[in-house]
């Protein structure tokens, strides 16, 4: 299956060989490799936590490799800082847009390399150059306006334009790395971006394209490198690899096995613990009908921005409904804040562990007991001894790898952090647990353990609503899967339909 490409006789513009990178407790990269030729779009694919971002960071000087070699134009190089990489002609646009929203668009494009006149910034020239640069993107905006006035999509395009903008003292861009550049773009904007990528390709730039959208891979990329679990899996010509083979390469054997497990059903036909009818919240969720049965896990699928996270926020009281009805355990409810939801027995493991989940400087013990403490109120304190018991119990039960419960949660690996957050909510013993992307950015071992835990919790009678962009994962435990598109529920799949192909079709909106 893994057809190596040998057709290009030219030397690669950038080559990474046998790259190793270790973090405390995690081997992030093992013998990873990547070859880029001038004038190609090279898709770098893999699941969350496969090591794509780490590899890119090694390539762009953000991280230092522990082993292996990096060849730029066939010469061994090593970049101590991102600036070194940039000087050598490697530009990167990261997943999170990192621009300065209060500066003008033009200033953002040329920050640090502004055109000057008599030692001062030549604003006129800068605006002209900016206009010129953006026009190649089909973007006609007021370049002197602050960046924050524009939509995220425009900001994303500006970030990419900044990536290829000429920089003072640097070689012209040879390699452009785009980490999930299309995540916040709509279909037209994506086509615009692809147009630009094709132009750049003709100019001889090698483009690394990281994405979760496989359709886009087939639209734009020439070759594909697949990574899994920090290792190189294979390098393929895009036209020689069909989607099923690609997915198999990305997911590997371990997860495919999960697929054959039956969905967990503690009770065959159970009562709904939560029922939503025509539930709406502004533009973010529209007329949602949802039944969550007791003791089952329901999957919530859809692309980024389809309304998955918004449903979780709504059901946890973080956003307020402005229409429709919601009932929990047979009683109509109205949620104004998370504390109310928690009091009813609803818990949410949020999407962004770093900013919404963990309290990094506090210990594992404190992080685990905080939600229970908040539920009890500040005056009924959980003694240190009880906290320690709770922490010890869950460290053992969820196999959290840590020397002791007093270690700050911020120092753990991603998978262990996620387990601590899960432990926090299990300690509250909720009836309904909402998990928003529970396996994002964690290592494969912890990944499997968390899926196992979800099944266990169902068997113990807990109800779960799990969102994930990994469809294979959803089919491993869901009794039914709700598919969202454009903030609306577009399908509810169960029984025979619970397979990734059907979900993918529903997400894409194709009639099957």
């Amino acid at each position, binding site marked *: 299956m893994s057809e190596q490409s040998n057709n290009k006789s030219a030397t690669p513009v950038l080559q990474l060989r046998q790259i190793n990178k270790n973090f405390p407790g995690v081997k992030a990269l093992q013998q990873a490799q990547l070859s880029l030729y001038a004038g190609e779009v090279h898709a770098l694919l893999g699941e969350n936590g496969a090591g794509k971002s780490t590899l890119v960071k090694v390539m762009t000087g953000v991280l230092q490799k522990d082993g292996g070699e990096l060849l730029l134009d066939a010469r061994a190089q090593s970049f101590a800082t991102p600036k070194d990489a940039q000087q050598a002609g490697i530009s990167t646009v990261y997943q999170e847009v990192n621009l300065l929203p209060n500066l003008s668009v033009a200033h953002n494009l040329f920050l640090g390399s502004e055109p000057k006149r008599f030692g001062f910034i030549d604003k006129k020239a800068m605006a002209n150059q900016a206009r010129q640069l953006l026009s190649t993107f089909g973007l006609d905006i007021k370049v002197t306006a602050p960046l924050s006035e524009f939509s995220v999509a425009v900001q994303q395009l500006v970030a990419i334009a900044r990536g290829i903008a000429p920089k003072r003292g640097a070689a012209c861009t040879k390699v452009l790395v785009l980490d999930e550049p299309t995540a916040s773009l709509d279909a037209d904007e994506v086509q615009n971006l692809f147009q630009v990528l094709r132009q750049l390709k003709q100019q001889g730039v090698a483009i690394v394209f990281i994405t979760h959208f496989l359709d886009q891979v087939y639209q734009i990329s020439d070759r594909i490198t697949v990574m899994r679990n920090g290792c190189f899996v294979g390098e393929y010509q895009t036209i020689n690899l069909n989607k099923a083979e690609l997915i198999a390469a990305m997911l590997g*054997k*371990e997860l*495919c*096995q999960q697929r054959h497990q039956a969905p967990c059903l503690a009770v065959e036909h159970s009562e709904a613990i939560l029922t939503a009818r025509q539930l709406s919240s502004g533009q973010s969720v529209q007329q949602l009908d949802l039944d969550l049965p007791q003791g089952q896990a329901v999957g919530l699928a859809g692309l980024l921005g389809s309304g998955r996270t918004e449903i979780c926020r709504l059901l946890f009281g*973080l956003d307020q409904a402005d229409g429709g009805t919601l009932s929990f355990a047979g009683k109509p409810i109205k949620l104004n*804040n*998370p*504390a109310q939801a*928690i009091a009813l027995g609803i818990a*949410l493991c*949020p999407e962004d562990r770093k*900013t*919404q*989940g*963990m*309290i*990094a*400087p*506090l210990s594992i013990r*404190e992080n685990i007991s*905080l*939600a229970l*403490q*908040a*539920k*009890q*109120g*500040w*005056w*009924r*304190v*959980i003694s240190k001894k009880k906290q320690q018991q709770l922490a*010890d119990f869950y*460290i*053992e039960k969820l*196999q959290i*790898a*840590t*020397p*002791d*419960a*007093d270690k700050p949660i911020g120092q753990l690996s991603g998978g262990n952090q996620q387990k601590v957050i899960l432990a*926090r909510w299990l300690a509250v013993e909720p009836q309904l647990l909402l998990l928003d992307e529970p396996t994002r950015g964690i290592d494969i*071992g912890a990944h499997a353990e968390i899926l196992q835990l979800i099944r266990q919790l169902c068997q113990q009678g807990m109800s779960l609503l799990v969102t994930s962009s990994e469809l294979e994962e959803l089919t491993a435990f869901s009794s039914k899967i709700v598919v969202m598109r454009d903030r609306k529920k577009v399908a509810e799949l169960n029984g025979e339909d619970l397979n990734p192909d059907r979900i993918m079709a529903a997400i894409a909106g194709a009639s099957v």
Partner: protein
Amino acid sequence: MTNEGVVVDQTHQDQSKADQLKAARQARYSPGQSAHQFSLYLYPLVALALLLLVNLLLDPQFFSLQWQDGRLYGPLIDIVNRSAPVALLAIGMSLVIATGGIDLSVGAVMAICGAVCANLLVLGDWSIPAVIGLAVLTGLACGLVNGFMVSYLGIQPIVATLVLMVAGRGVAQLLNQGQIVTFQNPDFAALGSGSFLALPVPVWLVLLALLMMQLLLRRTALGLFIEAVGCNAKASRYLGIDDRGIKLTVYLLAGGCAALAGIIATADIQGSDANNAGLWLELDAILAVVIGGAALTGGRFSLPRAVIGVLIIQALSTTIVVSGLPSKFNLLIKALVILLVLMLQSELFRNQLKTLFSFGKLRGGKA
């Protein structure tokens, strides 16, 4: 597809996990945490001890204590006694800083509460408990205003409290009608200059406030919630903590502490001087909290360490006076010594020093 590879992989994983857990269990009762706690106290205490030693060298009588009229006298008692108002402010300030905020208004709140006391006493008909009660209520009201602006209106703490810092002194001047209001009331004056069980009354008031606050914060979950909100307000809200309520509470408590400090200061001079009462003391309080090892970005706090910070500042002021240096050097020396103390507090700086030192040794060895 063969299962073999997967099975082998799985057992290997289990093995390494079991090892990890075993190591974890052995290490769980390690002294790491308490050692860390110890070092947090170590550096402020060492700094304080050094300052006191310098004082002893300059003045051999420095540690001497005299017993007179049922009360202890001596330079050490003076330092503790003079620290009282700032210590009270620092206790409140610790909580505000723990949530990532700052309260610039506490000095002005001292002035307001002092003015309230003096005017009530001049009017005459008020009992001392009523005067104290009303002054504390005034302080709490000021804290409420700050807290409301910060947590519900979303104004930046430094701006919100700057408003009351400026306006508060104006309110105090209005209450005093531009005069220095003095009163004759020996019972009330005793709160500032009296003594009880051999120690000055202000010292007892600080100890009492410290004890009550420690009980309130550490025997309930309030202290933990304050730290959680300070570390990550969003995550705290997501797990059911009322982060706005917590922020309101800390400004309220800071207002209460400032009121107590105002009462002591007013009782001490038997009068209320709206222009000078508590002037710039908020800065000393902030400094004390920082010397105590708290981060201005919020998070962990310790009231005892903040009080040690206050003692360091006060001991330093005394040292400069005792040293007999011309008084024009006072402020500069104070600033330099405090910079030194803060740098010694920093683990980063200590490590850099260590590296520098060991590098020097290495070079020396080779030579």
